[in-house]
């Protein structure tokens, strides 16, 4: 039976989506301008700034650096975030709520505060990782992991633990029960969390401002610098590629999830 959405709600939803998508459209159009400056509406359409982006060694190295960093962050955040979510959902102890709030605190705090606090910590601890790729990576993991905890936690909240218990009672080891029963049931939450981690890391600016390493500029910092010293639309052209990458990763993941669902049914 087809479910009908009330008209006012539908209108609100369409307006909401339009409001959220409009900035993306503006970035794309601004990057395709034929004018000299980053303005909207564009003065005619042209690929000159897209070509300028593709020819800019600075932008390309920043783009691929951000891509690698986001991938590395995604992997670690997904593992840590999933483990933390499992721990929080399955443990019963005093202060669990406080611990959950603690795990999620990097998202609540302003990114600049997190970035500067980490920077000061690296220096005072004498770890030798301030302004290195490793220090930046840790910062991104810290900032991205709460998103994984949130999505995996939501998946675990609706997961029926008795399924795993049934597997255990039939002789499966804890690891086998987790791998064969729990993991497939929370896989979508993990995948959503890992996409979030990737996107958050790829677009992270405030934390990178203090932690980025010399000669290794993430894309948002490169775009900011470009706007500071040259207000040309190449920053918007870089934005087009960033949006494309993020959209492609979301679509690809959705596609993979659907394919697996299909295989599972067979």
């Amino acid at each position: 039976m087809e479910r009908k959405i009330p008209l006012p709600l539908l209108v609100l939803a369409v307006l909401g989506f339009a409001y959220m998508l409009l900035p993306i459209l503006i970035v794309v159009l601004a990057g395709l301008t034929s004018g000299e400056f980053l303005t909207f509406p564009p003065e005619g359409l042209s690929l000159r700034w897209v070509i300028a982006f593709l020819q800019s060694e600075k932008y390309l190295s920043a783009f691929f650096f951000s891509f690698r960093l986001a991938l590395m962050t995604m992997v670690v955040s997904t593992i840590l975030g999933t483990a933390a979510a499992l721990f929080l959902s399955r443990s019963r102890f005093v202060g669990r709520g406080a611990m959950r709030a603690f795990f999620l605190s990097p998202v609540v705090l302003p990114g600049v505060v997190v970035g500067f606090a980490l920077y000061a910590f690296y220096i005072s601890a004498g770890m030798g990782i301030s302004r290195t790729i490793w220090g930046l990576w840790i910062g991104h993991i810290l900032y991205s992991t709460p998103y994984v905890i949130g999505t995996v936690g939501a998946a675990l909240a609706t997961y029926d633990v008795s399924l795993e218990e049934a597997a255990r009672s039939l002789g499966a080891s804890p690891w086998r029960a987790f791998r064969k029963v729990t993991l497939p049931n929370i896989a979508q939450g993990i995948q959503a969390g890992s996409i979030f981690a990737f996107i958050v890391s790829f677009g992270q600016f405030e934390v990178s401002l203090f932690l980025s390493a010399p000669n290794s500029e993430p894309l948002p910092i490169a775009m900011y610098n470009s706007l500071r010293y040259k207000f040309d639309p190449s920053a918007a052209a870089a934005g087009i590629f960033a949006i494309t990458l993020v959209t492609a990763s979301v679509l690809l993941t959705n596609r993979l999830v659907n394919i697996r669902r299909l295989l599972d049914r067979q």
Partner: protein
Amino acid sequence: MTDKYQTTRRALLKKGLGLGAAAALPSSFYINHAWAQDVTYDGGTFDAEGATLNIGEWGGGWEEFVRKALTDQFEKDFNCKVNWDSSFPWFPKFVTQGPKEPVFDICNWNLPNLTQTKQAGDYFLTTDEVKANVPNAADCWDFAFASGAGVTWAYMPYVYAYRTDAGDPVNSFRDFWAERFANKRGTYGTENGLMHAFFMATAKEFGKDQYDMDAAFQALEGAMPMKISEFTFNMLSLIERGEVDIAVHIEGEALSLKRKGVPMDVWQWDSHPILTQTKTISRYSDPMQKRLAFALLNRTLSPEFLNAFGDEFMWRPTNSNADITAPLKEAGVMNTADATKAFWVPDWDFFVQNKQDITERLNSIFGL
């Protein structure tokens, strides 16, 4: 307990002497620490044996140009690696690491931020110490050393950029407040150096002197509503589109828009403040890095680099032997002692001491 753990009086005395000697070690460590050694530089090239030089410099198109025109060749000539950090602001990085672990060996600044850092500790070599080791500094105009730390290598006068199709040409600082520019005036957010200079120049114009903050606040209130931008290039786009008819700006960038055919011109403020690029060298950098920093600053001050830089970005050089780029020369700009005599460097020490009050008040005037 066995005999070997029993402490005799003689052993105790020996241990005491050992501890005393160890306690004396830190002082000798500091005396012989690398940064305590004298470093000199005479202008020649040398082999830095692959050492890394940490620099704080602007990024984006600026970095791309400076790398090609200066640092790429510098790395080859001196066998070193330049670690380029463009993640501004520098001040918190310097202060967090402290003077003795300098975050950068050589750093490029605008004066208000430099002054703020200089006031926070013993971070930089004095201008005299730099001059003694940077041969090209001898050819610079006196105002290049006004900061008291480092050397100013390029500068631009502050100007009004205005649309010529919006009425008579601008010829006075107070024209910014003219009725015809109502709601078409442009200035910058409170963290932008151009706003700092505009504030000091406004105090000087409307008050007793540059320290008359109340007069400046009152005048700026009278200029509202204004369009507040964060970046100078963004302001250029507002002028190009006609959203702003007059704006606080700097000479070279504003003229670059005029060269693109936009009906606009610039008027240099009669108090003649200048926006400067100043490079400092960290006092406690290691000897090799300090020597490399001297060498890089020396190359920065060379007429060859300054001429190329001026041609690209239209900044004026502080080296008396360098040339003014052709478009500025055609507009009558000269690089002579007389031409530089009128320049005014606002009292940034005063500004930094009162920065918090100024920022809060300006934010409230701007409605930020």
